């Protein structure tokens, strides 16, 4: 007996077989962005990421506010990595205003920055877990993140948007007895994240879902200009904390984590290794930090720069190298602030990675790019 499909179901032409699917912008698995995927059955033929739904005009806003007032709004793009997102702006403003930062403030900044990196990665990991249907991996990082948020709250007074870094140092000194509390909680945190290996990273279900999906070769990773954990997962040993040390990173022993595979698994594992490295850096910084001294240079109200000058500074944020280009023209407000964000650069690799993948692999590949929609749109 021969079986024939009714007319309309049997699609023979290639053009008719391909379906366009919009993932987002209201989809929980995409964030505030849209991925337009063209699928042939279960396989992705083409993919077009469509960011821009949460554009806030941060760069234009920065032209109407002075160097201090810019701080609260410039950290809004990535609220759970707010110290790192502000770091290049503050370094640039310091160079323009000609401020020498006290030694202790530099160490406090490094500690805050590394704590924030861990907070960001934990949030990212929690979402990566729930994208893959692993509810335990959503609950554990979300809970353990609390240890570090508690430290940031003691240190800066706010749980997420700290507004802690200012041109000239940090807003306030560390509270009394902070070093002991920080060391204890960071040590426990490191012990906790090592437990993630058994439940998540060595889990055969995760490995079968992420291994050999979305492979980004070393050449492509460099050619697309990807940064951060995506670049390091493709076998490029590049970390700005080592290559272009800012503040006191040249005095600390920073180890770069590199994996050669370049697949989703490597991209999900490198941030986890980075967290352990961050714990090492925090311990070193606590040891080497001057025990007393000023943490902030007193500035005049509405500080002005000397003339038409420009500066470009970049730091290693939780997602990769984050640059800030500031042009000033002897006014209290900067003439132009341009943020060069890692999220947007990592997104460029997405169409290439998804071509030929199954639709079910899309969340694991997409979120492994360490992409944060709000930062890309800024």
């Amino acid at each position, binding site marked *: 007996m021969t079986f024939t499909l009714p007319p309309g179901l049997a699609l023979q032409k290639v053009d008719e077989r391909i379906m366009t699917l919009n993932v987002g912008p209201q989809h929980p698995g995409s964030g505030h962005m849209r991925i337009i995927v063209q699928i042939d059955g279960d396989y992705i033929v083409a993919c077009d990421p469509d960011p821009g739904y949460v554009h806030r005009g941060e760069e234009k806003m920065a032209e*109407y*506010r*002075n160097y*201090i*007032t810019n*701080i*609260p*709004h410039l950290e809004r793009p990535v609220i759970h990595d707010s110290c790192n997102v502000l770091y290049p702006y503050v370094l640039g403003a310091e160079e323009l205003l000609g401020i020498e930062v006290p030694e202790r403030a530099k160490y406090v900044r490094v500690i805050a920055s590394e704590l924030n990196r861990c907070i960001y990665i934990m949030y990212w990991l929690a979402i990566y877990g729930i994208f893959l249907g692993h509810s*335990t991996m959503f609950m554990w990082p979300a*809970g353990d993140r*609390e*240890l570090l948020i*508690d430290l940031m*709250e*003691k*240190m*800066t*007074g*706010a749980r997420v*948007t700290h*507004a802690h870094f200012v041109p000239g140092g940090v*807003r*306030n*000194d*560390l*509270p*009394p007895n*902070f070093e002991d509390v920080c060391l*204890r*909680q960071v040590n*426990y945190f490191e012990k*906790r994240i090592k*437990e993630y290996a*058994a*439940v*998540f990273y*060595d*889990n*055969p*279900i995760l*490995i079968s879902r992420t291994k050999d999906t979305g492979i980004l070769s070393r050449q492509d990773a460099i050619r697309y200009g990807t940064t951060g954990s995506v670049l390091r997962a493709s076998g490029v040993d590049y970390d700005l904390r080592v290559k272009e040390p800012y503040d006191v990173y040249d005095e600390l022993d920073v180890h770069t984590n590199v994996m050669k595979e370049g697949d989703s698994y490597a991209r999900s594992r490198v941030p986890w290794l980075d967290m352990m490295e961050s714990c090492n850096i925090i311990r070193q910084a606590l040891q080497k930090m001057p025990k007393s001294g*000023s*943490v*902030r*240079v*007193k*500035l005049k*109200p509405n500080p002005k720069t000397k003339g038409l000058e420009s500066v470009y500074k970049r730091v290693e944020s939780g997602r990769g190298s984050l640059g800030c280009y500031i042009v000033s023209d002897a006014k209290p407000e900067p003439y132009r602030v341009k943020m060069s964000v890692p999220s947007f650069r990592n997104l460029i690799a997405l169409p290439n990675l998804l071509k030929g993948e199954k639709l079910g692999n899309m969340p694991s590949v997409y979120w492994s790019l360490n992409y944060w929609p709000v930062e890309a749109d800024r």
Partner: protein
Amino acid sequence: MGTATGIIRALNSGIKHIATKRFTLRYPEEKLKFVGDGYQFDPSTGVGIAGLKGRHMLFHDHCTGCQLCSIACEGVAEAIAMVKVPEEQKQNKKSIMPQIDYGKCVFCGLCVDACPFYALYMTNDYELSSFSKEGLIYTPAQLQVKPYVAQDSEIQISDRGATHG
């Protein structure tokens, strides 16, 4: 490592947590402990004192009505408005004091950094919910009141894990 061993290891790692203590905080009954009495600023050294950035507190006997806090808030949240108060304070010739709209405030604390007269501090009070928008506007008289904040829970780390004890 085989698939079966891997799954057993993953399950085993989770099962261990049946015996560990609960990490979560029972919020309305238990409340977090903070360092100090809230974020403060010392204008003579130009450095702040660590503390939670919560609801503000205004010292009427220090406030001169100079509007620096209001100017600092321009471009950030525009939450501070200077309002007329009864003429009682000698140092405040214009008799104006800040009124803060917590529907707009982002709790960055730049107004505290701007005050040169030790008049505006932040407190540990973070429970500011209200049924109406008007209820979030705190007048100078309301800002004068020192809040009572229950603080009883802190992260404790023991061999059996971390808890809020």
